[in-house]
C-alpha cells in the first residue's frame, strides 16, 4: 500500500510498519502550510491504522527537514501572536500523538535536521542518523531571534537535563552527527543512507513491548540532573541570566525567553511546559529582533555567501599561488588565513628579516591553536611549509593573485604595484588592501587596470570574517570574480562595493568615531559616551576603538585626504579630525600604542585619561542617554543609506552583511540598513519612524541627521529596504 498525503508518502509494509517519506513541494521539507496539512493527515491516518507495528519518518530530500517557514514568519505583525500560538500548539498536539502511538516511532535522518526538523525527530521514540560529514543537527532558532517552539526546549531538557540542554539552546549549536550522538540528540549512527531503513526496522522489531516509550511518558520520569527543587538547578538558574547578559547586554530577547521557558520546564509538567513554550515562541515571532536576524543575519547572509554579488557567467577559479607585498600586521594575517586554507603564499617585504618576522606570526597563531588542542605540530609544519618569506620581488613570479598590503602611501604603492604587475600569472589579478586610498587612483600605476581591484581585509585578519571587495572604475568582471572566489577559498564572506572615499565599511565606521568625538567636544562625559556605545551592542566603545586605531592615524588620514582635496567629501569626520589633532598636537596622546590616548593603559586594564575630563568635560551638560545612543547608531545607519543611495553599495544585502561582519553592527539590528525596516518611533514604524526620529535629532544636533532622499522616499512609499 502506497499513498501520497499532501506530500508525505505513506507506505505500509507486510509487517505492519508504516514508512512516511517526507517529500514536500520545493527543494526542502519545511514547517510550512503544506507540512501542516500533510502532518495532520498522516497522524490522523496513523491513529486509525489497523495492525500497526511501527512507524518510520524518512525524507526524500537531501536534507531531512529544514525547520520553520521563515518567510511566513517575516510577515507576522505585532498583535498576530495568537495565530502562531495556535499554529504551533496544533503541530505539537500532533507530535504528542506521534510519540504516544503505542508502537515504536523512528526518525531515519538522512541529512540535516535543524530547528523544526530536529523537533520532529525528538517527537519520535528513536533517532538514527546516517554518518555524513555535511549533515547538521541542532536547534539554531536563537540565532534567528526565535526559540524552538515545536517542543524543542521542553524535549531537549527532559531528554538531556538542564545543564546539557541550555548551551545547545542558548548558542544554537549545529552539530555533526557524531556530536549529536554524543550529546544525546540522536540514538544511533549508521554508515550510509541505504542502511537507515533497515536499522529503523531492526529497532522496531526489537522493541515490541513498550520499551520505546519516551522518557517523559514513563512512570516516575525525572528530568536528568533534577528539577526546580534541586539546589544545583537553582544555582544554574540564578547564574544563567548574568552569564547571558555578559554576552547579549540585554539586547536579544530570544535567549532570555529560552531561559525563562527553561525555568518553567523545571517547575511544571511536560504538557504545561509545552504550552508555555508555545506562548514564548509566539511572542518572539513579531519582534524586530527576529525580523532583523532572519532577514539581515540569515537570508541576506546566505544570499551573499551563495554569490549574489559575483558575476554569474565567469567560471569559478581556485588560487594556487598567492603573493603578498608587505609582511606587516595585515600582510602576515593574510598569509596565515591563506595558508590555513591550503594556498601557497609568497610573503614579500623589504628585508628577509621583516618577511621572516611576518611568517613567524603564523607560527605564533598555530602554537596558540596547539595549546588549545585545536591543532598539532604536524598541522603547524604543514601550514608553515606553505609560506615562503622573501625580500626578492622576483619570487612573486607566477602568482594568480598579488595583494599589496604596505603602508598607506600613494607613491610607495604606485611603485610596488608597477613592479609586481608583470610578475602575475596569465589571467592573474593584482589587488590592494588599502582602506583609505581610491582604487582608481592606485590603478594609474598599472598597465592593465581591468585586472586591478581592492581586497580590503579587516584586522585581526585571522578572526575577522569579512572581505570588502572594491571595484575600481576599470576593474572587470574577471577580476571581481577572482577576488570573490579567493575570499570564499580562504573561508571569508565577501561583499562587493564600488570605489568611493572610505569605500563602505571605513566610511560608515568613521561616523561612529566622529559622533563620539563631537559629543566629547560638546562636553558630555567621555566615559558615558564610550559605555553607551557598548550598550547599543557595538563590540567596543567609540573612544576605546579610536585609541586602538590611534589618534595619530586619524590625523594622518585627515591630512592625506586634505592634501588630495577630498576631506569631508563623503562622511563628515571633521569633529574626530579636530579632536584627534588636539589629542596628538596639544596633549601628545597619539593612541594606545603611542603612550595612551583617551585612556591610560596599565598592566591589564585601562582608565580614562584625566586630561580628557579636565579639558573637555562640561559637568553642566545633562545629556539624554537615549539621544547619545541613537546619535552613535544613526550616524552609521544614515551613512549606510547614503552609500546605498550613491551606489557605493549595489545591494542592501552587501550593506547589512558588511556592517554586521566588518563594522560590528549590533546583532539585533540585522545590519545598519535592516535596522531601518523595523525601527519604531511613536506611532511610526520602519523607515518612516527612522525619518521622523532623525528629523528630531537634526533639529537638536545638526543637519548630519537630516534623512537622505532614499530614506524619505521609503518613508513616503511605506516601503522597506530589501
Amino acid at each position, binding site marked *: 500500500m502506497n499513498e501520497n498525503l499532501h506530500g508525505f508518502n505513506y507506505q505500509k509494509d507486510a509487517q505492519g510498519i508504516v514508512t512516511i517519506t517526507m517529500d514536500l513541494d520545493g527543494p526542502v521539507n519545511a514547517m510550512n502550510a503544506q507540512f501542516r496539512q500533510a502532518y495532520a493527515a498522516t497522524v490522523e491516518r496513523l491513529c486509525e491504522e489497523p495492525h500497526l507495528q511501527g512507524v518510520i519518518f524518512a525524507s526524500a530530500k537531501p536534507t531531512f527537514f529544514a525547520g520553520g517557514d521563515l518567510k511566513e514568519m517575516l510577515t507576522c505583525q505585532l498583535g498576530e*501572536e*495568537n495565530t502562531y*500560538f495556535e499554529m504551533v500548539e496544533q503541530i505539537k498536539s500532533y507530535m504528542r500523538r506521534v510519540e504516544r502511538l503505542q508502537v515504536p516511532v523512528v526518525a531515519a535522518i538522512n541529512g540535516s535536521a535543524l530547528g523544526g526538523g530536529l523537533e520532529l525527530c525528538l517527537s519520535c521514540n528513536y533517532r538514527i542518523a546516517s554518518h555524513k560529514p555535511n549533515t547538521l543537527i541542532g536547534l539554531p532558532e536563537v540565532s534567528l531571534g526565535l526559540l524552538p517552539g515545536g517542543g524543542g526546549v521542553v524535549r531537549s531538557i527532559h531528554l538531556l537535563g538542564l545543564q546539557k540542554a541550555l548551551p545547545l539552546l542558548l548558542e544554537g549549536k549545529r552539530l555533526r552527527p557524531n556530536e549529536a550522538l554524543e550529546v544525546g540528540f540522536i540514538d544511533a549512527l549508521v554508515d550510509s543512507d541505504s542502511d537507515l531503513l533497515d536499522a529503523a526496522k531492526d529497532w522496531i522489531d526489537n522493541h515490541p513491548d513498550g520499551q520505546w516509550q519516551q522518557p517523559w511518558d514513563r512512570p516516575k520520569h525525572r528530568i536528568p540532573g533534577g528539577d*526546580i*527543587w534541586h539546589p544545583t538547578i537553582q544555582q544554574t538558574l540564578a547564574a544563567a541570566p548574568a552569564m547571558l547578559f555578559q554576552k547579549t547586554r540585554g539586547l536579544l530577547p530570544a535567549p532570555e525567553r529560552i531561559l525563562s521557558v527553561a525555568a*518553567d520546564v523545571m*517547575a*511544571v*509538567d511536560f*504538557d*504545561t*511546559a509545552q*504550552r*508555555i513554550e508555545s*506562548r*514564548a515562541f*509566539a*511572542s518572539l515571532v513579531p519582534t524586530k529582533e527576529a525580523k532583523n536576524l532572519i532577514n539581515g543575519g540569515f537570508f541576506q547572509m546566505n544570499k551573499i555567501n551563495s554569490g549574489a554579488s559575483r558575476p554569474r557567467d565567469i567560471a569559478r577559479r581556485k588560487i594556487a599561488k598567492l603573493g603578498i607585498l608587505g609582511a606587516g600586521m595585515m600582510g602576515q594575517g593574510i598569509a596565515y588565513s591563506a595558508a590555513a586554507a591550503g594556498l601557497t603564499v609568497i610573503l614579500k617585504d623589504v628585508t628577509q628579516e621583516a618577511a621572516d618576522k611576518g611568517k613567524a606570526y603564523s607560527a605564533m597563531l598555530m602554537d596558540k591553536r596547539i595549546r588549545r588542542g585545536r591543532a598539532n605540530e604536524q598541522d603547524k609544519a604543514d601550514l608553515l611549509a606553505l609560506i615562503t618569506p622573501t625580500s626578492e620581488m622576483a619570487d612573486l613570479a607566477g602568482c594568480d593573485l598579488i595583494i599589496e598590503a604596505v603602508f598607506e602611501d600613494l607613491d610607495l604603492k604606485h611603485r610596488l604595484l608597477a613592479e609586481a604587475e608583470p610578475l602575475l600569472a596569465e589571467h592573474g589579478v593584482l589587488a590592494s588592501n588599502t582602506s583609505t586610498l581610491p582604487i582608481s587612483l592606485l590603478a594609474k600605476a598599472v598597465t592593465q587596470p581591468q585586472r586591478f581591484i581592492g581586497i580590503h581585509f579587516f584586522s585581526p585578519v585571522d578572526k575577522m570574517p569579512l572581505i570588502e571587495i572594491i571595484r575600481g572604475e576599470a576593474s572587470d568582471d574577471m577580476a571581481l570574480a577572482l577576488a570573490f572566489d579567493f575570499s570564499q577559498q580562504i573561508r571569508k564572506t565577501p561583499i562587493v562595493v564600488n570605489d568611493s572615499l572610505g569605500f563602505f565599511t571605513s566610511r560608515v565606521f568613521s561616523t561612529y568615531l566622529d559622533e563620539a568625538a563631537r559629543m566629547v567636544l560638546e562636553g558630555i562625559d567621555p566615559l558615558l559616551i564610550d559605555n553607551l556605545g557598548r550598550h547599543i551592542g557595538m563590540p567596543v566603545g567609540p573612544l576605546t576603538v579610536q585609541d586602538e586605531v590611534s589618534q595619530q592615524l586619524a590625523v594622518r588620514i585627515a591630512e592625506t585626504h586634505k592634501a588630495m582635496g577630498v576631506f569631508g567629501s563623503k562622511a563628515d569626520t571633521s569633529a574626530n579630525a579636530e579632536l584627534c589633532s588636539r589629542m596628538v598636537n596639544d596633549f601628545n596622546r597619539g593612541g594606545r600604542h603611542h603612550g595612551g590616548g583617551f585612556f591610560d593603559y596599565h598592566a591589564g586594564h585601562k582608565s580614562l585619561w584625566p586630561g580628557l575630563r579636565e579639558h573637555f568635560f562640561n559637568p553642566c551638560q545633562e545629556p539624554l542617554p537615549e539621544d547619545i545612543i541613537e546619535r552613535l547608531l544613526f550616524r552609521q545607519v544614515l551613512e549606510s543609506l547614503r552609500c546605498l543611495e550613491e551606489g557605493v553599495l549595489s545591494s542592501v544585502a552587501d550593506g547589512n552583511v558588511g556592517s554586521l561582519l566588518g563594522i560590528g553592527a549590533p546583532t539585533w539590528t540585522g545590519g545598519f540598513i535592516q535596522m531601518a525596516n523595523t525601527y519604531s518611533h511613536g506611532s511610526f514604524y520602519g523607515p518612516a519612524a527612522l525619518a521622523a526620529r532623525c528629523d528630531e535629532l537634526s533639529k537638536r544636533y545638526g543637519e548630519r541627521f537630516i534623512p537622505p532622499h532614499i530614506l524619505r522616499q521609503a518613508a513616503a512609499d511605506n516601503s522597506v529596504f530589501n
Partner: protein
Amino acid sequence: MEKKIHTMSQHAYIFDAIRTPRGKGKRDGSLHEVKPTLLGAGLLKALQRRHQLDTARVDDVVMGCVTPIGEQGSDIAKSMVMYADWDESVPGVQLDRYCASGLEAVNIAAQKVASGWEDLVVAGGVEMMSRVPMGANGGAWSNDPEISIHTGFTPQGIGADTIATLEGWGREDIDRFALQSQQRAAAAQTAGYFDRSVIPVRDRNDIVILTRDEFIKPNTTLDALAGLKPSFANLGAMGFDDIVLKKYPQLAAIEHVHTPGNSSGIVDGASAVLIGSETAAKTNNLTPRARIVATAVTANDPTIMLTAPGPAAYKALAKAGLSVADIDLWEINEAFASVALRFMKDMGISADITNVNGGAIAMGHPLGATGAMILGILLDELERRDLKRGLVALCVGGGQGIATIIERV
C-alpha cells in the same frame, strides 16, 4: 516654624478589591502555567490601569503567601512590585498567618493607614498551590516531634471532623452545606456578580489564559457528594484521632465526614485590595467604596484548630462598638463545611446572610490569597444589595481566628 503633624486615627478606605479567577490547583489547572510572581504582578498592573495610579504614591504592598519558598520565596510581594514595573520607591512585604494571610494583609494595611503613618497601601495575597504544594515549606509545629508532641498537633481536617462530631452534624448535614456553596457560587457566576472584580489572566502575548473561576461544579448533587471517600479517616486511624480524643474525652470516636467535596478546593489564585486614607483618595482621585471599621485576631484550642473565627468576630464587633445585628452580610471562609456551620452557630446568624455567593468549597481556597478575595466578594455584594456592613472571618492554623468589619461609605 510650625511642623506638620500627621493626624492619627484616620479612616482606612477600600478603593478597589480585585482578584484573579481561581484555577484548579493541579497540573491540568488553567493557571498552572503561570509563575506566581507574574500572577500577582498582573493584578498590580490591573490596579494601576483601573485607577490611572501613580505607583510612586503607593507606600507599601503587603501580600500574604502561606508557602513562601521556591518560586514564592524571598518576599514575593517585592518581586511582584518589581516585575509589574511599579515605581522603584515602592516596597513590598510578604507575610504568613496561614489561611488568614490575605486578610491579615488587608488588616495590616488598614492599620498602617489608620495610624496615619502611611496613606496608600496594596494588600492581598498569592498562592499557586499547583506549583508550590501546600506543606512544601515544612514547619516545626507539624514536622518536629518535640514541638508536635508538646502542642498536641493534629492535621486540621481532623479538627474539622471533630467539630462536626462535637456538634452532631452528620455527613448529610455537611454535604448539604457543600451543595449550597456550589449552587450559590454557580448562580452568582452565571449572574455575573463576580465579573466586576475578577481580572482575566493573560499570557505575555495578551492572550487570555483564564477568565472565570474554573473550580465551581454547578452540577453537583447530594448523591455525588455522598459517594466521596472521607479524606482524613486514614490519618485519624494512624493515631491523630487519639490525640484529639484525649482533649475531647466526651467523644466516643471522631466521625470523619469531610471529603474533597465538602472541604475547600486546592486552587491557584491571587488578590489585591487598594486601601488608603482620605488624603490618598483626594491626591489620587480615588473613590472610597467602604471603610475598614475594625479588625481582630485571636486564638483558642490549637488541636481542634478551627473554632476561633467566632471569637475573632466578637472581638472585632466589640472594638467597633457593634452587635451581631448591625452586620448585614457575613463571609466565613469555607475551609471545611463544619467551620462555616460552627461560625453561623457561634454568631447566631442565618445562612441567608452568610456566604450568599458560595465560598471556598465551590471556588477553592488559594491559601495566602483567600482572605482578600472574600473581602472583595463581600464588598461587591454589599453594593449590589445596597447594604451597609459586612464581616469577613477565617479559621487559621494554630487555632487562630481573624475577622474584619467593613462599612460602605
